[in-house]
């Protein structure tokens, strides 16, 4: 790791990451934010991204198993982790409707969560893509650096 990147500087970068959210929270003065809905959105986003990303990584685990002469333990463990996400989602949408938003049924809520996850991930991936491209667009040629 670059010697100039110290833990303190990483904390500062984390604070800069949170700065836009903090500015918008300060501007709201607590008047417009529905905190209960925010908690539900956080829980739904967390569980959906955990579950879908786990299923995606189960596929990767098959490749890993192949490279290690076909052991089943790694992908079975990962499949258990993904199934745990599904079970928790079902449990929390049925028990007391904790994760329910403005959707009529449990099935509608789960399908909405998947679409919501796709929209959110598309927004985040495009933002990260722009960050990466902008970083490299301004790369200077080597000759200029030497002088």
């Amino acid at each position: 790791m670059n010697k100039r990147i110290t833990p303190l500087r990483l904390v500062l970068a984390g604070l800069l990451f949170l700065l836009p959210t903090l500015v918008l929270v300060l501007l709201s003065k607590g008047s417009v934010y529905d905190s209960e809905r925010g908690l539900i959105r956080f829980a739904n986003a967390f569980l959906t991204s955990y579950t879908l990303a786990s299923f995606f990584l189960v596929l990767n685990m098959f490749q890993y198993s192949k490279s290690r002469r076909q052991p089943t333990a790694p992908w079975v463990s990962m499949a258990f982790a993904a199934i745990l996400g599904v079970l928790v989602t079902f449990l929390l949408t049925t028990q007391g409707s904790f994760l329910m938003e403005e959707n009529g049924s449990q099935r509608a809520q789960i399908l909405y969560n998947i679409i919501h996850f796709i929209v959110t991930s598309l927004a985040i991936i495009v933002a990260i893509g722009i960050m990466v491209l902008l970083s490299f667009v301004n790369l200077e040629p080597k000759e200029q650096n030497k002088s």
Partner: protein
Amino acid sequence: MENDFEVALLLWAPLGFVFLSLGLQFRKDSSSQKFGQVLGAIGFVLFGASFLTVPSSPSAASSSLLVNILPSLGLMVVGLYIALFAGEIPVKRFPSKLRPMGLLMFVTGFALFEAMHWTDHALLPSTTWEGESNRFWMIFRPTFLLAMSSFLLASGYLVNLIGQRISQTSKILYITGSVSLVLLILSVMFDGSSTTSDEFHNSVLLAASDILGFLSGVGLTIIVFGLTIWQYERKRPGLDRLPPPDQEQLNTAAEIVRNNIGGGEDE
């Protein structure tokens, strides 16, 4: 029931194709990868058309959003891609004179994206669905602007620490991140064409919950993935206790080395 079947066939199945195609890209054989690309393209087109084929489904609003934001996102990403590969880099793919055009495409795409919020001009892509503001637009725009300002400001600081051949980069990242933040602040102060400032402010704060939930969920999955591999690897015998490689393994290693040695034109 019939409608449910149509929605499953014309919206959810194509979406499944797109996910499956992503999974197939990790297969080593190129025929599976190509099949995955074709499947993904078919899934993408069918999902994009689902707001026409199954407009009664609430999820069809997301396909309408996808079609409407595609021109602006395409301009932004393709513009930056052209600007990057038209620069003075060893892997140059476009002539240098295309660089300003790439940057102009990025700015135009961003301006188009913002214009969609501030005005409902008939020539601009629509942000409404069934006469109201599209609920997924109220998720996408705040998430995109918030993620962009957060990531750009943090990366502007980190890039500055690395400090080689990138003296301008940090400044550009800070400026673009700040522009994004200013647009968010303006949106929570002034009404847009189809949303009030209060509605948007609530959406931005909910988008912050979404981003934190998304990053925590994906982060936890990566930790679980890493732990699973670590658990398996630690039970394997150490390198010093392994038998020497057999002829088949040596041949495989030699083939990998042969395929990766020398470098092509791009390097």
